């Protein structure tokens, strides 16, 4: 018999191996896929943007935690890093560093810490940062550059979506799929984003219903519009491959904190988001609607949760 006191705790006495840190750092790791495409197509500068953005996010988190009198070590749980890198991936490849840093700090401070820190935010911090930069520096946030494999002379300075919206030019699917197109540094290659997303789904960190319903919804609503008027609206495949849809579907809308808590709710959430994407892309002033659509469904999410409460066993 040992002299030490026995541990007294409430059941269960065994726990799974998962932890928040693991989830977050694994997500960071899976971001290597889109990050790789950014480096491959746009050179090393994007890497610098990511580093600066992630670093600022962590520092901002650290300062805010300190000010709020919370446990400062929380800033290293990986969630701030995820926000920082995700924000960077949504920015144009030649985005000024200090502006990226400002965006990251804004995201952490206003979208995350002011709502109570990790797990308590209502809006996706990375997208709030991106929306802030879009509104703060509209020119920088929409100045695109060619990939390393495009000749600068043919480059019109527009993303495939803008090309279509304003010039009615379709980009080949192959380029869209592999990522040899202008756009935000991490959003161009559908292939690599899907790979990264699949890893997360397989690991159980992402519910497949979210990306699936989101993409399917864009496909359907885009398809309906295309059937109505093929010459005016792009085909659904173009919709799902172009722009930030893939990045949004696998990394943004899937954010655990801001997505609904029930499976049914997640499906509704994805469908609603997809509808908004098509609506904004085709009818609003902006060529891209992923960011706005997700921020809007973020704000509707409490109501989705409210209305999709599961049935308690035995409830009539």
């Amino acid at each position: 018999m040992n002299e030490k006191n026995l541990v007294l705790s409430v059941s269960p006495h065994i726990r799974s191996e998962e932890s928040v840190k693991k989830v977050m750092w694994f997500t960071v790791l899976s971001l290597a896929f889109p990050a790789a495409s950014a480096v491959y197509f746009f050179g090393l500068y994007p890497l610098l943007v990511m580093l600066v953005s992630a670093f600022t996010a962590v520092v901002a988190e650290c300062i805010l935690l300190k000010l709020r009198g919370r446990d400062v070590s929380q800033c290293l749980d990986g969630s701030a890093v995820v926000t920082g890198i995700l924000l960077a991936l949504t920015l144009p490849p030649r985005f000024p560093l200090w502006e990226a840093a400002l965006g990251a700090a804004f995201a952490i401070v206003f979208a995350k810490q002011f709502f109570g820190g990790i797990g308590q935010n209502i809006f996706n911090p990375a997208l709030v940062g991106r929306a802030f930069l879009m509104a703060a520096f509209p020119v920088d946030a929409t100045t695109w550059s060619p990939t390393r494999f495009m000749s600068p002379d043919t480059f019109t300075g527009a993303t495939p979506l803008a090309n279509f919206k304003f010039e009615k030019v379709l980009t080949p699917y192959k380029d869209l799929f592999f990522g040899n197109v202008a756009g935000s540094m991490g959003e161009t290659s559908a292939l690599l984003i899907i790979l990264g997303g699949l890893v997360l789904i397989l690991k159980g960190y992402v519910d497949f219903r979210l990306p699936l319903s989101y993409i399917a919804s864009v496909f359907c609503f885009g398809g309906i519009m295309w059937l109505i008027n093929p010459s005016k609206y792009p085909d659904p495949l173009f919709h799902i491959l172009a722009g930030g849809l893939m990045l949004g579907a696998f990394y943004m809308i899937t954010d655990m904190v801001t997505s609904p808590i029930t499976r049914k709710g997640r499906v509704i959430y994805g469908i609603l988001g997809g509808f908004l994407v098509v609506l904004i892309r085709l009818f609003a002033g902006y060529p891209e609607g992923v960011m706005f659509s997700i921020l809007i469904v973020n704000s509707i999410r409490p109501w989705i949760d409210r209305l999709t409460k599961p049935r308690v066993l035995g409830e009539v």
Partner: protein
Amino acid sequence: MAQNSRKPGYELVKGFFKENPVLVQLLGICSVLAVSNTVVNSISMGVSVLFVLFFSSLVIGLIKDLIPNEVRIPAYIVVIATFVTVADLFLKAKFPDISKALGAYIPLIVVNCIILARQEAFTKKNKLLPSILDAIGMGTGYIITILLMGIIREILGFGSIFGVKIFGSWFKPILVMILPPGAFLTLAMLIGFMNFITRKSEEKKL
């Protein structure tokens, strides 16, 4: 604190900071958000509000005993609306540019909660002199707040003050500050800051 409230001087100053109509009482937020994008707009709006507040309090203070309690709100509003119309017509005639920039927000002073709320909460219950002092204090408090907002938003959003650029070419304006979200966030921060200070001073007192 309780004794102070009887001094006329206190009625004047309390509105500046301690009972600031916007930051503490959360009144008149709409116009503060809407027209504080430049310093000039802020000052014009602030002065208009002060003007209306002062004369409304004066008139209502004079006639309040004549008004039956049940119809007091419509009556107050008529008085307020009269002065707002005067201010609106004056601006339109003398400063057409500013009048244009402020748009519908000058007529909307009528429904600026500050003015009616002061009549309801203060003028109704107090004598004429304190009421007027209170009106001046509250109006000044409003000017202070909207000016602060204007300064912050103009500097960050345009890089200028009174339309004069104050930074070199290196400064890149943060456009969002002059858009609706910028207004919301700036005011949120000011109110938050105010709360923070009030809480701190209260803690010290205990």
